[in-house]
Structures are given as structure tokens and as C-alpha cells.
């Protein structure tokens, strides 16, 4: 069986679902002949034709609104925002319509659509190409926010997102698009949404993260293990609706929690998890909750961007602080 990267897993999931469900269509800028600027839709237009893999006019608002319209007619569009930093014009259609139509029509009109976007920094990209803004979507009711962090989870979660009867934001950590390969059988098996994945069992501290930071967080767990500290690593995967139980169970065991994300700290999604820990797990905690995040600045241009993104060292230090505190 072939080993594939995260981005190839995205392509594999799209191709599988398009072959098995003719209501699935892909649309966006450069998704056709070019196969997407990261090649996520490579070869799909050849296979499924120009109508089902549709190059749209260069207007994000159009992509988002047309996606709502198609989904309302029972299709399952998978729209691509070329970069997370270009998603802002789509937000009105997503917040006011996609996430809301089921509710405001009492279930008469639904929007089973997916918005994919290459997300996050760390690839030496130009300005506006490195944003992590998942927290802007996690506060929108009726919307799922999903971030895969491995080839297998990209495949399984994207299939689940497309099959989900409600709108899903699918943010792809582009820094790890080609980080490593793994075997991902093209069997059409979806992974569950709305659950966290425990990537590594541990007893001393819980490291909670998502997206590209899974890489640094797993590295930190290795480094901690070398020093005899056992870290549990949780990939949240679906930020909303949040599976808080998995996090709470882990913290009940370890008594310590470090939340790692690359978006700015203030009102980032880590704040929600920290608040929930304070509300529901206060007496399990042996140390204050730590957050290792991007700073409350704009992500700098690429000469400095790695100084902005949470590093393995920062995660290790935060974990050690929680241990020192108790």
C-alpha cells in the first residue's frame, strides 16, 4: 500500500467521495487544471470534469455564497479558500447563512457543505498567507471547525466532514502538508467528528493541541520522556462542537494541562479550554493551566515567523513549570 502525505490524503478523500457520491463537487480558485496551489485537487478535474471540479471567478464571496446555494439544493460542495488569510470575505455567507439556515428555517433548508482552507504559518509564504484564525469560527453556532494533523486523520475527517449534514470548516495545517508519509488505505472509512484523539498516553501532564502544533507537541512529549516525564498528547481535531470529556478525563489523571496553539493567545480557542478546565476540573488541577500560543501580534513576515510559532522548547518548559508547581 502506498504511503501518502497529508495533502495527498486530502486529494484521496476528495477523489473517493466524488467517485461514490455524485452530489459532491469541488469549487474554488485554481482547483481545476492547476489542481490547487498546493495540489490538493490534483487530477480531480481530469477524472470528474469541469463542472464537478469548478474553477470559479476570483471572488471569495462568490465561492462562499454559491456554495451555500448549491448545498441548499442538496449538493455537497467542497469549497476551497486558497489561503486562510483570504477567508474573511467568506465569513458573512458562512456565519449568516451556512451556519444558520437549518436553524432559521426550522430544518427546512440545510447546508451540507465543507470549506477547506490551507491554514497556519511556517512555510515562508508571503504576507496574508500564514493566518491561524480558527477561533473566529469556533464562536459561530451551527458550524463545525475541524483541523486534521496527520495523513490518516486528514483522510478520515475530510470524508466525515463531507458526509456531515451540517457545514464544516476544514482547516488544513499546510506546514505539515508534506511533513511525513503514512499508509492510508483508500477504503472510504471516515473517522468520527466531535471527538478528540489521544495521540500518546501519559500520566504526568496533558498536552492539548491541534493542527500543525501536533508536531511540536509530540516532539515535546519525546523530550519530556527523555527526562522521565510522562506526557499525554491530545489532538482536539474537532474544536467545535468540543469533546471536553476526553480532555477532562486526561486532566483528572495527570492534574496538569498545557494548551498549545499557534493563533494569538487572547480569546484564542485555548482560552475556551482553559476556562472549561477552571469551571469543571478545578479540583483535579495540581498546577495552573499553561498556554503556549502565538503572540497577540500579527504573524510576522517569514524572517521572524518561527519566533512567533510555539516551539518544542516552549512546550517543554511550560510542561515543566506545571510539574514544578506541584
Amino acid at each position, binding site marked *: 500500500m502506498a504511503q501518502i502525505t497529508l495533502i495527498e490524503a486530502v486529494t484521496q478523500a476528495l477523489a473517493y467521495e466524488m467517485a461514490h457520491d455524485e452530489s459532491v463537487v469541488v469549487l474554488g480558485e485554481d482547483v481545476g487544471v492547476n489542481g490547487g496551489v498546493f495540489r490538493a485537487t490534483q487530477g480531480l478535474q481530469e477524472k470528474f470534469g469541469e463542472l464537478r471540479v469548478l474553477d470559479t471567478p476570483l471572488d471569495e464571496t462568490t465561492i462562499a455564497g454559491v456554495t451555500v446555494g448549491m448545498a441548499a439544493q442538496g449538493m455537497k460542495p467542497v469549497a476551497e479558500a486558497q489561503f486562510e488569510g483570504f477567508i474573511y470575505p467568506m465569513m458573512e455567507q458562512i456565519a449568516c447563512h451556512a451556519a444558520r439556515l437549518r436553524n432559521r428555517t*426550522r430544518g427546512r433548508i440545510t447546508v451540507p457543505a465543507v470549506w477547506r482552507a490551507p491554514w497556519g504559518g511556517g512555510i515562508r509564504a508571503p504576507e496574508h498567507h500564514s493566518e491561524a484564525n480558527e477561533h473566529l469560527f469556533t464562536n459561530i453556532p451551527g458550524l463545525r471547525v475541524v483541523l486534521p494533523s496527520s495523513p490518516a486523520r486528514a483522510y478520515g475527517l475530510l470524508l466525515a466532514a463531507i458526509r456531515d449534514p451540517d457545514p464544516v470548516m476544514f482547516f488544513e495545517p499546510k506546514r505539515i502538508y508534506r511533513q511525513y508519509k503514512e499508509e492510508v488505505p483508500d477504503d472510504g472509512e471516515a473517522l468520527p467528528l466531535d471527538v478528540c484523539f489521544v495521540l500518546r498516553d501519559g500520566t504526568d501532564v496533558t498536552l492539548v493541541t491541534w493542527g500543525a502544533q501536533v508536531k511540536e507537541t509530540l516532539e515535546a512529549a519525546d523530550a519530556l520522556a527523555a527526562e522521565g516525564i510522562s506526557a499525554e498528547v491530545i489532538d482536539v481535531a474537532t474544536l467545535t462542537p468540543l469533546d471536553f470529556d476526553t480532555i477532562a478525563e486526561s486532566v483528572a489523571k495527570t492534574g496538569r494541562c498545557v494548551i498549545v496553539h499557534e493563533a494569538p493567545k487572547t480569546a484564542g480557542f485555548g482560552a475556551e479550554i482553559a476556562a472549561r478546565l477552571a469551571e469543571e476540573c478545578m479540583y483535579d488541577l495540581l498546577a495552573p493551566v499553561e498556554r503556549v500560543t502565538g503572540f497577540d501580534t500579527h504573524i510576522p513576515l517569514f524572517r521572524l515567523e518561527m519566533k512567533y510559532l510555539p516551539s518544542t522548547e516552549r512546550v517543554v518548559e511550560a510542561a515543566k513549570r506545571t510539574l514544578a508547581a506541584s
Partner: protein
Amino acid sequence: MSIAAKFEIEYLQYLDAEGKQVRDDLPAFAQDLDQMVELYKLMLSTRVFDAKSIALQRTGKLGTYASCLGHEAAHVGIGSAMKPEDVLAPSYREYGAQLYRGVQPREVYMYWGGDERGNDYQNEPARHDFAWSVPIATQCLHAAGSALAFKIRGEKRVAVCTIGDGGSSKGDFYGAINIAGAQNLPMVAVIVNNQWAISVPRKIQSGAPTLAQKGIAAGLYCIQVDGNDIIAVRKAMEDALERARNGEGGSVIEAVTYRLGDHTTADDARRYRGEQEVKDAWAKDPVKRLKNWLVARKVWDDKKEEAWKAECDDWMDNEVNAYLETKTQPVSAMFDYTFAEIPADLEKQRDLALSLENKAH
């Protein structure tokens, strides 16, 4: 000199302000006087409905309401030209079109009366139409997306969106007509130009002499019609729908009318427009105009008018009662349609809301 592109915009009118016929080539539907009487009756019932809505608001039985006074020809013209299988993506005052397609007055009351069930249109074909869209012009892209779905599935259906003169300034409108042209989508965009976007007049929206011509840039058929002349509106709609259905391209229709009422019941138009302007607009009243034409053809008279108005009053009273008798939804309703299945986390919040409710009783 060579010319790269050249265009002109036709203006279509059959009935002048007094209801005199200004051209002889009446379209087939307008030669069927029984049908014209039916259209007139719906225009009249729309007006009765509208007056009832405002009365409900003024007596505290409705929230803010957006009146359709003066738009009856445009709206009924749009709705009556569409086939049941077509899809309407309206903004928020196109009741004439919607009543024709089966929306019930009680549903309109329910919506403006603070109840989401008003958007859950029970009758076909309205049941497969979009709900009212308050964020301006966003519905245009829903029509474009619907039209794209029809094209992909090979269905002979047309998506129609309506917007105002103000809405035609928005990117969503331009985006929708742009992709409709680029993809040859079966879509018709109707700009119901009622001269006012709340307090902002038409001339501030655009320097273009017509709003219809915006469609030229998108490669669509464009026409401006007298929006108070239902024959002109419906004829332009029929032509546009036919072309779209046959894969011959989408259209932009500008229906020139006038908002005789306030923007909504929360607005006071006297703050920004003169009495004379409104008086002049009343002289072009779409309802009176068609009445004159029908009376001249001896298929309508004051007696019939009074009888029909009385029938409409009864109908609306019945609808108002149905609305007023509708019990408020249980508090759980705000949770139950957020997702197809309620997530565990949200279920806890629903339980909290229900427990608060139980304490209150």
C-alpha cells in the same frame, strides 16, 4: 475608431400611469383577461395583507415589519412568471411573489412576529424557495449556487433572486451576476428599484444611468421595465426565464418602482424625502393602473373590488388569528435546529435552559 463593445438598454412598458395601453403587442398572458383579473386580485390581496401587517405592528402584535406598499406589480409579476420547479431567493419584502408561490400570510406574521417557524414555508412550491434574506444581496449568490446545481444536474429549472437598488451596490450581487454570465447559469436577477435604500436615494447608489446595465458587464441579458406595470414585469420575466431554462443565458431585470411606505415600521421616511415626491409616486400606483385597464375592458368594477376586498379581509383575519393563536415555541427550540443532531456539549446547555424554564413556572 473601432468599438470594442456597445450596448443599449430597452425600456419596456405596456400600461402608462393611468392604465392606458401604450403598445399593441400584448403578450399572450395579458390577452387572457381572466388571468389578468386573477393577477389583479393577488395584487389587491397583497395590499390588504400589507395594511393588516402594519396595523398589527402598530398595535404591538408584530415586531418590525418591512412593507411592500407600491411593489405589488413587480412582486406579483415576478412570482407569477415563475414555474413551480423554479427557485426564488428573495430579500425581505417580496410578499406578492411569495403569496403566489404559496407562502401563507400567517408565516409572514410569524417571521416578523419573532418566530423562526415563519421561515418554514409549508406549501409548495414556496417550500423549496429560500427564506427571507436580511443581509443585503447575499441571496443573489444562493440563486447563483442553485442555478449551478441545476446546471450540473441537468435540470430545466431557473433560480430567481430579487434585490433592491441599494442591494445592487453590493459585491454579492456583482459576484452572482458575474458567475451567472461566466458559467451560463439559469439565473434571473431582478433589481426592484424602489428609489430608496432606507434614507439613501438611488442616485447615491450608482452613477450608471440604469441599474439594468450592470448585467451587461457580466454578459447577461438586461432590460429595464416599468415596475408598476405588471404586464411589463411579467413579460420581461417570462422572456428571461425561457432563455435561462433553455440554456441561453441569465438576465438582469430592473423593475423601476417606488417604495410608497417607510423602509420598515421602524423607519420614518418623512425625515429624508418630500411629500410631493411621494404624491407623484402615488399617481403611478401599480394597483390603480391595472384596475383602470381592467375596468376599461369591463372585466372589473367597484362592486367586484369591494367584494374581493371583503374576502381578503376575511382571509387576513383568519391568518392573523392563526398567527396570534400559535403558541410560542418551547425554549428547547433554540437548540434543536442548530445541528442535525444536537452535540453532547450543546445538550447540556439545552438542559440548563429547560431547567431555568421549569424554575420560572
